[in-house]
């Protein structure tokens, strides 16, 4: 019971921090806007006819998954900031379970990412992406799964990281390549083997594909857009979440205490 309250308090702290950071608020909404409106719009007008499906919708679903994934991953990595300004000590000396600390952090960053997801859905509706209410519900559900998966991924990364400098490189080396390997903007239905292998390793691929699997379910575009059945993606993400959460928590706590 106490651990549940602690998880709620930890998560709420992250949400409060997000809502009070005006520059972060603006910047997190600007990127999806540029990606969907500028990139999606131009590709739709120039390439849309040749791919045979609505390119704006394709990019919208990709950016939705990418934004949530990235926000939750980088959010967890912000534990580094707590460590550098000594706040993490206050959490670590408290009598709550070490899992509660990690789960509270993942829950908090998931809330932050979900808030961004809601804005992206509204943005999509405004610019004319065809979204039904059922699809909104499905996106919300998938969104939660993506956040948890990405949170555990962030945990594995941060548990092996020493300082802020290393964390600053994460975007370049871990996030950006996945934009292309996961097919956020570009179709990856067919890939040469030297891209197929890294693509299958990148976690974001499963998040993007699961989103499209649910979103396009029952639509004519489904076979040309979706890579694997949603069940396969759920399985990969579920196992990945379990393994990364347990291993990440173990490594994180160990590295924190065994200096």
């Amino acid at each position, binding site marked *: 019971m*106490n651990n*549940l*309250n*602690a998880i*709620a*308090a930890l998560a*709420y*702290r992250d949400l*409060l*921090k997000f809502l*009070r*950071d005006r520059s972060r608020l603006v910047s997190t909404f600007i990127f999806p806007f540029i990606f969907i409106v500028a990139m999606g719009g131009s590709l739709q007008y120039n390439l849309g006819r040749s791919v045979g499906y609505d390119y704006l919708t394709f990019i919208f679903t990709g950016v939705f998954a990418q934004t949530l994934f990235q926000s939750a991953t980088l959010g967890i990595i912000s534990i580094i900031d707590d460590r550098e*300004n*000594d*706040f*993490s*000590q*206050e*959490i*670590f*000396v*408290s*009598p*709550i379970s070490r899992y509660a600390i990690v789960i509270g952090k993942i829950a908090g960053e998931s809330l932050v990412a979900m808030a961004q997801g809601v804005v992206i859905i509204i943005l999509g509706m405004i610019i004319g992406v065809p979204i039904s209410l059922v699809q909104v519900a499905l996106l919300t559900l998938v969104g939660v799964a993506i956040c948890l998966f990405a949170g555990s991924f962030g945990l594995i990364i941060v548990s092996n990281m020493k300082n802020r400098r290393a964390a600053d490189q994460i975007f370049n080396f871990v996030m950006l390549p996945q934009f292309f390997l996961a097919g956020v903007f570009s179709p990856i239905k067919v890939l040469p083997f030297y891209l197929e292998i890294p693509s299958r390793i990148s976690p974001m691929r499963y998040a993007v594909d699961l989103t499209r699997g649910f979103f396009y379910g029952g639509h004519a575009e489904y076979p040309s857009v979706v890579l694997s059945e949603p069940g396969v993606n759920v399985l990969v993400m579920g196992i990945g979440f379990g393994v990364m959460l347990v291993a990440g928590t173990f490594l994180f706590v160990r590295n*924190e*205490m*065994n*200096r």
Partner: protein
Amino acid sequence: MQPIIEVENLVKCYRKADRNAVDGISFEVMPGELFALLGPNGAGKTTTISILTTTLSATSGRVKIAGFDLDRESGAVRQTVGIIFQNPSLDMNLTAEENIRFHAILYGLYPFRPAFGMMPKSYKDHVHSLASILGLDEDIFKPVRTFSGGMKRKLEIIRSLMHRPKVLFLDEPTAGLDPQSRIALWQYLQQVRQESKTTICLTTHYLEEAEQADRVCIINRGKVVSYGTPDQVKANLIDEYLLIDADDRNRLSAELKNLGLKFSDVPPFKVGLNGQSTHQILKSIATPLTVVQTHLPTLEDAYLAIMGQEDHE
């Protein structure tokens, strides 16, 4: 009486370090005591405190706090202790009240509520009384970022006492504070000791602060070099002495020799008291004296003497 802190042969070797940061130290603290861990930078003070508060694992040794084993019952230890870290560990983006609420929920004192207004009345009353102790009143709802250094320290102490810890650890609590804030902080700590009989274990550089302690443990290079009450530490190291001089130095030195007193060859003469009272010695000297000074050692003398010896080795 059982000691509330028992440390036995504690060793900590950091990864990739070629020597032990803490090298087999042992000490005990009795309930209600004010205990000071003293030593130069890098002596192992913060390392020791980090281990005692479960944020760092020891290489070897045995520690018991309030009867709980540090390794096997770390959860119970965490519930029993409070700690003020060397660097403020407040969330600067949150208000003072939010920092306090966060702490209270983590320690299971109250259930989680997203706003102050939704918290139970007992909590609100508690916060209001804390705010008046701090002299903050409405500022308690302002971000901690806007607070002064002294204010932050006091807020941290108040926060760490929320769950009524039996032992309060303070790692250089007054470092970086101006003299006024330092005095105010000490007054508050003494008040806490009187009211709730909290055991206080602190590390410090300031010897006048350690002078107030019930017991002092001086460590250097990870080893205990002196341990006891401030008086014992002083007594073990430096003798009290009397400094005297006269116009007729030859007569004085002959007289001191006759009395069988130990004294330094160079005037003014340092005469060791060796348990005799100053009055007794002065009474027995007939030579008219021009200088009489008594010298009572301070902890600082003892500390410097110890560190001086250490450096020669």
